[in-house]
């Protein structure tokens, strides 16, 4: 129990005193999660739309596959990305290992199935009459896609927020391909893992709370996008 109190106090201290290590980790976390969210939304929303609206053979199989990919463990993603970007791997020449882009690639793989699966569900639960209406008003395919996404915005917001939670809290990928290098690729979660490994449970909790503070900030900034009650 003491850890929790200690963690709370420390979290404030870290943030208020501007602890440089913590701020470096915050910067890394925010930066890398921004990259990966942008990439997974740009790729995932159109794919989710196709999966939710389109009709094609084996659609249900693809759906099951995407759902299964929701259970892709971060360590596995970490290992697979590592296998590609390691010096001996096919992308070794780009020197991506232990860099932020490498983490972002892994996190994009992590977030993509979440965005696709939940966006597909959101698009599917749209009123069928919306599709008819858009088509009869003359929307072209691009406009049709965008208008569908806009009408499904509250569901997509949930998809984005869920994916963000996944990205923000993952450790496996950041550890494996980021390397948890101080000042460079140490994210808050890898820092938590490190502190916990050292037995500094209070510090671990403190950093965990710092992560929650980031999440809270982001979610508060989405507050105004929230669906107005009951319509």
């Amino acid at each position, binding site marked *: 129990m003491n850890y929790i109190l200690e963690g709370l106090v420390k979290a404030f201290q870290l943030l208020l005193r501007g602890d440089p290590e913590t701020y470096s980790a915050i910067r890394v976390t925010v930066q890398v999660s921004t990259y990966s969210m942008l990439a997974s939304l740009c790729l995932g929303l159109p794919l989710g739309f196709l999966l939710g609206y389109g009709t094609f053979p084996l659609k249900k199989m693809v759906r099951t596959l995407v759902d299964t990919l929701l259970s892709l463990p971060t360590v596995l993603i970490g290992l697979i990305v590592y296998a590609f970007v390691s010096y001996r791997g096919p992308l070794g020449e780009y020197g991506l290992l232990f860099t932020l882009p490498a983490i972002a690639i892994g996190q994009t793989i992590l977030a993509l199935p979440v965005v696709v699966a939940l966006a597909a569900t959101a698009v599917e639960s749209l009123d069928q009459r919306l599709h*008819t*209406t858009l*088509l*009869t*008003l*003359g929307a072209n395919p691009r406009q049709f896609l965008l*208008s569908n996404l806009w009408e499904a915005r509250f569901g997509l917001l949930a998809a984005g927020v869920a994916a963000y939670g996944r990205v923000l809290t993952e450790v496996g990928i950041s550890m494996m391909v980021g390397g948890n290098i101080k000042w460079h690729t140490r994210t808050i979660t890898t820092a938590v893992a490190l502190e916990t490994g050292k037995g500094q449970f209070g510090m671990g909790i403190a950093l965990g709370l710092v992560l929650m503070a980031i999440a809270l900030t982001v979610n508060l900034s989405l507050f105004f996008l929230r669906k107005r009650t009951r319509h």
Partner: protein
Amino acid sequence: MTESIYALKGIRHCYGDLVALSIDDFAVAPGSIIGLVGPNGSGKSTLLRMLSFLEKPSQGEILFSGSSEESSTRSARLHVTLLDQEPYLLKRSVMENVAYGLKVRGMRQGYAIRVKEALSWVGLAPEEFARRQWYELSGGEAQRVALACRLVLHPRVLLLDEPTSSVDATSAALIKEASLRARQEWGTTLVIASHDWPWLHEVCDEVFHLFRGSIIGSGMGNVLFGPWTIRADGLAEKHLADGTAILVSAAPNEKSMAVIDPRSVSVHKAPAATEGRANTLAGTISALALQKHSGRVLVTATVDSIHFHAELSSTEVRARGVFPGEQAWVCFRPEDVRWI
């Protein structure tokens, strides 16, 4: 005559086993206003969906302006617009809803004037309604906004699926005017499905009757359902609850359906006036309505629980003293029945 804007050839549309639409040959002339009537489930909405290229028929071909739709569905959709039976509004303000189709066509500025114009055509004061959100509308208001969304496009073809189903009488009159104005100003062709026969007859050049997916004629038909008892002399009979028997020509089978043109039905005050013995059914006159186009009067008489429509000239109506509420005799000849 100019080329048909729509030509349908050998259309069949099925949902599973159910044949929802089966039209062998049908054409719509440009600039005409066509009505579709028929009982629930007769295929009106299905036909309108085909005409708007939302769905492809299971079989057959629809030519739009002479060309097969395969090649030009997208461009055809820019000219053809459908008001759905259950209209749907985008989750935006009324203004943005009505402007959507214009924006989609690249009109990003100056649409406000056209939107306001379209709203006033359907009887919604723009200053009051333009800013409302989609959920701040009554049922009839929403339906009229949906119609405004289509009118604002000045489409070449306007397909309306029950445009007056939940609007008030004043608005129904406005919608009629808007339809006529569309044809006059932009040469719009209209196809309108509705259960409101009098309204439809006021608006349309011609009204087609759908039944079980087939077009069974134009004008206002009387439909008689089986079961039929086939008599020894080959004629068929239907017995009503009050004991009356309706006699018709030989029925293909006992569940067939008979159609009688209102012009073949007449209504008389005295049975004596009726020609011979055939059908002379006792009933009550329930309404008289003027048909704007023909200037003739549509008389509705109820026999047991069946409504018969007869089309008489106003001279006939007056001469025979046909009034709502009075007893009268409905007459037609068994051989005037068409079977489907």
